[in-house]
């Protein structure tokens, strides 16, 4: 079974409603680093600094401002943002079925899988099969977190995948990028066509790998063999299950609180 779902609800259209969970489809391959203090290797926090008063600003003194010009802002409160956020929803309602070929890859944002929840397996398999056979994707609006997304649901290798799409207004106009038409020599055109034909191959993603990531991983392995890792003070394994993020946040707040005493 895939990991815990990011969201659960139903995918529906017409009279069909299938309980599903949304799970991650990709794990970005970036190797990430924590910033440490070079003296005792404590993990460092990002704090907000006021250059005017030359001091750290506590979170309860921080507000959000939308910049409208030099030194001019509109302050927006949490409540105001909240009031324009969409209602949480438990359905992915398919509005239209389209041909995925019509969607240029420039619209693709982020991929997920939809997996069937208990009781939805049969209907799910049926939908996967039919969508695969008809080669159609469902377009839907879908609220995740604070935002409403425009998404395409399609059949991918025996499962349903969901890709969030960019809204049209997010796509930069390409007029400036398209060169003005010029006369093309017919023989030049056919030469390029021929080259492309010769170089045509199947899509085989296994052939490609992130070389830098490989090298960094190798470097880390080598360093670990040569020398024991440095340890931050008070580093302890936290007990408790499933609340890793919250606990990390609380521990971090606890540390700042102790320092401020």
């Amino acid at each position: 079974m895939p990991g815990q779902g990011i969201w659960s609800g139903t995918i529906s259209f017409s009279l069909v409603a299938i309980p599903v969970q949304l799970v991650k489809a990709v794990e970005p391959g970036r190797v990430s680093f924590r910033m440490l203090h070079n003296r005792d290797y404590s993990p460092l926090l990002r704090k907000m600094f006021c250059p005017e008063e030359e001091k750290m600003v506590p979170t309860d003194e921080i507000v959000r401002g939308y910049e409208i010009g030099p030194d001019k802002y509109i302050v927006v409160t949490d409540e105001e943002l909240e009031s324009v956020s969409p209602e949480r929803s438990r359905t992915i309602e398919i509005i239209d079925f389209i041909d995925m070929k019509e969607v240029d890859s420039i619209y693709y944002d982020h991929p997920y899988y939809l997996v069937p929840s208990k009781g939805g397996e049969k209907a799910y398999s049926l939908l996967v099969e039919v969508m695969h056979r008809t080669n159609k994707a469902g377009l839907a609006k879908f609220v995740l977190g604070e935002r409403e997304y425009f998404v395409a649901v399609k059949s991918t290798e025996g499962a349903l995948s969901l890709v969030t799409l960019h809204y049209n207004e997010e796509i930069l106009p390409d007029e400036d990028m398209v060169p003005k038409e010029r006369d093309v020599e017919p023989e030049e055109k056919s030469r390029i066509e021929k080259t492309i034909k010769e170089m045509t191959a199947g899509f085989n993603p296994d052939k490609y790998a992130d070389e830098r990531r490989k090298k960094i991983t190798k470097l880390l392995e080598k360093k670990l063999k040569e020398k024991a890792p440095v340890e931050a003070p008070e580093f302890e394994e936290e007990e408790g299950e499933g609340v890793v993020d919250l606990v990390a946040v609380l521990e971090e707040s606890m540390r700042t609180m102790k320092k401020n005493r």
Partner: protein
Amino acid sequence: MEVAGIRLSLSNLEKDLYPSYGFTKAHILEYYRRISQFILPHLKDRALTLKRYPEGVEKEFFFEKRCPSHRPSWVKTAEIPQNDGERMTVCLVNDLNTLVWVENLASLELHVPLARADSPEAPDSMVFDLDPGDQADILDCARVALMLRGLLSQLQLASYVKTSGQKGLHVYVPLDREETTFEDTKRFSKAVAEVLQHNYPDLVTAKMAKERRIKKVFINWSQNDSSKTMICVYSLRAREKPFVSFPLAWNELENLAGQGDPEKMQVTYSEAMSRTEKEGDPFREVLVTKQKLPYL
């Protein structure tokens, strides 16, 4: 007796329900009448659990969750679904008449859930019930309450504290999102309790077991449950003396903790009446503050 145009027949007014202190049912009715404008907003639309002491605080008591069938017709009620799927009729103390009627039943203590009767699964507060173990006292609770407040304010959550009227303190974090569930508040409060235990192992425990509580304050996060109730702010407690569950301002708590006298933390019924008449309801913020749990 007539309250707001409705006649109530009151019984046993002379009965001393706090015998070692000398506090009769008439005193109790008078207390609740005078505190009514402050306590009613906190009782409103919540399923009341009556804790009745018909023979006084030194004798037997019983809990009554179901609204007595002999109730007057004007008592507002709600239907609450129970675990077995059955529905139960509960009293809603939404007006002075009902409050007086309930007190005439010698329900000295008024217990209410953290959610309203029309949305019993959606808490509008998260609570930390600080309970001192053996050899710990309310001063230790005050230290823990102040740490809790500090930690919560780091997360931009405002919190409010009241005495339990017994040995402990209750820290409330008001919430206003309908979709918050007891599962959320339980998970959040448990994580907070465990982080405090981890950082102050000599003072705090997040574990229920009595033997783990010696000299420590138990942060009872498990009160964040639809089946649990909390003593309502301004309710009397059935102890030797008529103490009240009463709100304290944070700086007041800090001062009292500094003075080191646990008795000074307790608020009697008379202090409760004079303070609310002067200062209003300091716990009102719990009903009006708008905030949501982060990192969930």
